[in-house]
């Protein structure tokens, strides 16, 4: 199980870097929102499974489950709110 945990941790770190590099590569706030969603949707599950593989069912793993649920649910709502605000600013002459 240690090998599985290590591989998942490596995948989580690589996913975080991939999201951040994509964030730097893309232009425009709306495009960059996809990178934030990618980071929330890939790093979190990898960390959760790695934690479960290394520690089993523990209170810390339960907290990670709650953290993942919070970030996934709130990430969707926040991405919608930010995108709506950005489009509203574009349509009403805000800062480009």
């Amino acid at each position, binding site marked *: 199980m240690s090998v599985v945990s290590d591989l998942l*941790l490596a995948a989580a770190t690589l996913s975080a870097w991939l999201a*951040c590099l994509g964030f730097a590569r893309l232009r425009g706030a709306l495009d960059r929102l996809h990178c934030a969603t990618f*980071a929330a949707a890939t790093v979190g599950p990898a960390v959760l499974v790695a*934690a479960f593989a290394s520690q089993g069912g523990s209170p810390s793993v339960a907290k990670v489950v709650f953290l993942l649920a919070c*970030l996934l649910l*709130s*990430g969707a709502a926040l991405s919608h709110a*930010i995108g709506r605000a*950005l489009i509203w600013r574009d349509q009403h002459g*805000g800062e480009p």
Partner: protein
Amino acid sequence: MAGLSLPWLAAGIGTILALVIPIGAALHGGVGERLVAVQMASVVTCWALAELSFAFGQPSFLDLALTLGLLSVPGTLVFAIFMERWL
């Protein structure tokens, strides 16, 4: 150091290093780009804190990550509405 887990520590440090990009992006550009950069940085920071919690064997770090994750919701929402209406 007792309870130190090197794979988790390496993952945590690697994730923290990735934070340089969104923090750098938050220092440049328009208001919208900065807000998206803050959102990105908060997500990455949450998972870096979670990894460091397992690395050092300190469950209290997970409470920090949970607090950050929960507080980033109203903060980002308020800023998005503020940006939409007044900035």
